[in-house]
């Protein structure tokens, strides 16, 4: 069941992104979509709106890049509770650390191992 919900929620988030790309002028590139979704996810999360989506959708809400924003926001909020002002700076990046490190390590490894095919 949770797999079906992940499919639906994840699919819907992507569908919204696709509509934004197709229905707005050409200037909206994939980079803009990623930036928009990460900040959007963080803001929705801080407002308490993304959490419920994660409850329903599981990976369907955490795997889209908006889930990364959610992760950053929640990490920050928790760290502010625990450590105060210092947490505002360290919390988000700490929470996102695993994903970022994985992206850098795997990104670098793949770049060393493979050549683009064109």
């Amino acid at each position, binding site marked *: 069941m*949770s797999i079906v919900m992940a499919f639906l929620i994840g699919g819907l988030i992507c569908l919204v992104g*696709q509509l934004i790309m197709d229905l707005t002028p050409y200037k909206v590139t994939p980079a803009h979509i990623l930036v928009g979704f990460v900040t959007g996810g963080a803001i929705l999360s801080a407002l308490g709106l993304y959490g419920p989506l994660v409850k329903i959708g599981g*990976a369907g809400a955490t*795997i889209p890049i908006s889930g990364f924003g959610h992760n950053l926001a929640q990490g920050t*909020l928790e760290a502010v509770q625990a450590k105060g002002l210092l947490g*505002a700076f360290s919390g988000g990046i700490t929470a996102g650390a695993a994903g970022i490190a994985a992206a850098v390590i*795997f990104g670098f490894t793949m770049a060393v191992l493979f*050549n683009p095919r064109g």
Partner: protein
Amino acid sequence: MADNNKQAGPPKKPLTLAEQVKQQKQTYDQQAYQRLADSVKPRPRVVVNALNAFWIGGSISALAQVITLVFTSAGLNTRDAASATVIIMVFIGAFLTGLGIYDEIGKVAGAGSIIPITGFANSIVAPAMEYKREGFVFGVAARMFNIAGPVLVYGFIVSVLIGLIAYFLK
């Protein structure tokens, strides 16, 4: 179109350089031209694209959910399982990019393969591979963050702002 094919005697008043340039130019009303171009341009297939983004984005998410379930059943708590899933998904995205498969998925899926974290990995690996010929410092390492850099910059800015707001509202 000025009909300046035949020179019918000298002009009464010599034109200024700016006027000559203007007369030379075949000018188009930019808005009217844009309308003409828009009437000719093929539209993106909005419905087909949206459906493809939906099912492919959904499938990537469903796969991630399966991986999460495997991790939780192996005894990880929800948060660690989510982190581990992210790492696995980043690996999958990076690996498929290395194999030259992810861009083929992207042609069909559009946002369906950009928005999932696998797309974030793709946006890191694609330039890193591409610019390997420019060296490991200015090529791979510098170009790696072409798209991922802005994502991290704005993600961090927003998260710190959220933290500051939360701190001062407390």
